[in-house]
């Protein structure tokens, strides 16, 4: 999870760093399952890994291409 968090800030292509942030959210949802909290795991999987990635990609399409820093 930490390696993917560092990678989300180091990548140049913005689309790659958005996918890395979604991977961090997926790992956090698995951690919530191991900490025996089913409600929180379901919420983090539905909202964090699904809708956050979706609205980032929609905004990325509206501003530039997906190049540059």
């Amino acid at each position: 999870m930490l390696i993917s968090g560092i990678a989300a800030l180091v990548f140049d292509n913005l689309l790659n760093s958005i996918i890395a942030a979604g991977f961090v959210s997926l790992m956090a949802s698995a951690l919530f399952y191991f900490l025996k909290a089913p409600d929180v795991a379901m919420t983090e999987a539905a909202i964090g890994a699904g809708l956050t990635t979706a609205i980032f990609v929609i905004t990325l399409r509206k501003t530039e291409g997906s190049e540059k820093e």
Partner: protein
Amino acid sequence: MKFRNILALILIFILGFIILQAFNISPEEGQLVINKFGEAEIENRTAQLYINKSVNSNNEKVVFAESNNLESGSANIVTSVIANYRSLDTLGEVTVLFLAATGLAAVLYTNKKKKRNFIVDEASLILKTGVKILFPLLILAGAYIFIHGHLTPGGGFQGGAVIATAFLLKFLADREYKLAEHKLKIVEVLAGVSFVGLGLYALFTEGSFLANFLQTGTVGTLFSAGIIPLIYLSIGLKVGAELTSIISNLIEV
């Protein structure tokens, strides 16, 4: 590397060192300090009162499918904390979500002609036929999650997010899909008004805002736990409508 990056790294190391000092305090008597991992003493916290369902009265035993007319009556303890014991915080959270959705619609308001250049290619055939089957099933699954919020893990927020995902799929499959915005607004307004209306009705009949004024049946059946299913119904519909309107406003410029 630049000078600003090195300065930021030094600041973060100092901050991390200061945070880690908070985990090293040795306890004096009567103080609650941060425990080691896995050794939380639940008896000293207020969570023990919520687990025993004995904040006001004094219940001894809580047994699944047998206890009748308890204080809170729902089998999911996290649900009873959110919607019964601390429902004022849930009201504040619903307000914050409403403000964010309204603010987003106000920022993105424009008078020019809206043209949608979001999706360039036509969607493939698999996606179109798949969405026709999946869309009512997803809405059914989301409604099931927030109706059974007091028996299984789930609740209003999760069901609302699943419903918003169903509408996102519909936007992806069809380039010219237009959402009926006024119907969405009517659903959201009615759900919000009913949540506050339940609280005011309880204020006038029982004396405290958002008290539990229906009967709580046996723990574990569908029609138990008093007012909690009604609260979760309005929260689920409101959150689903708001997240859908956020996505719809972002797609159409």
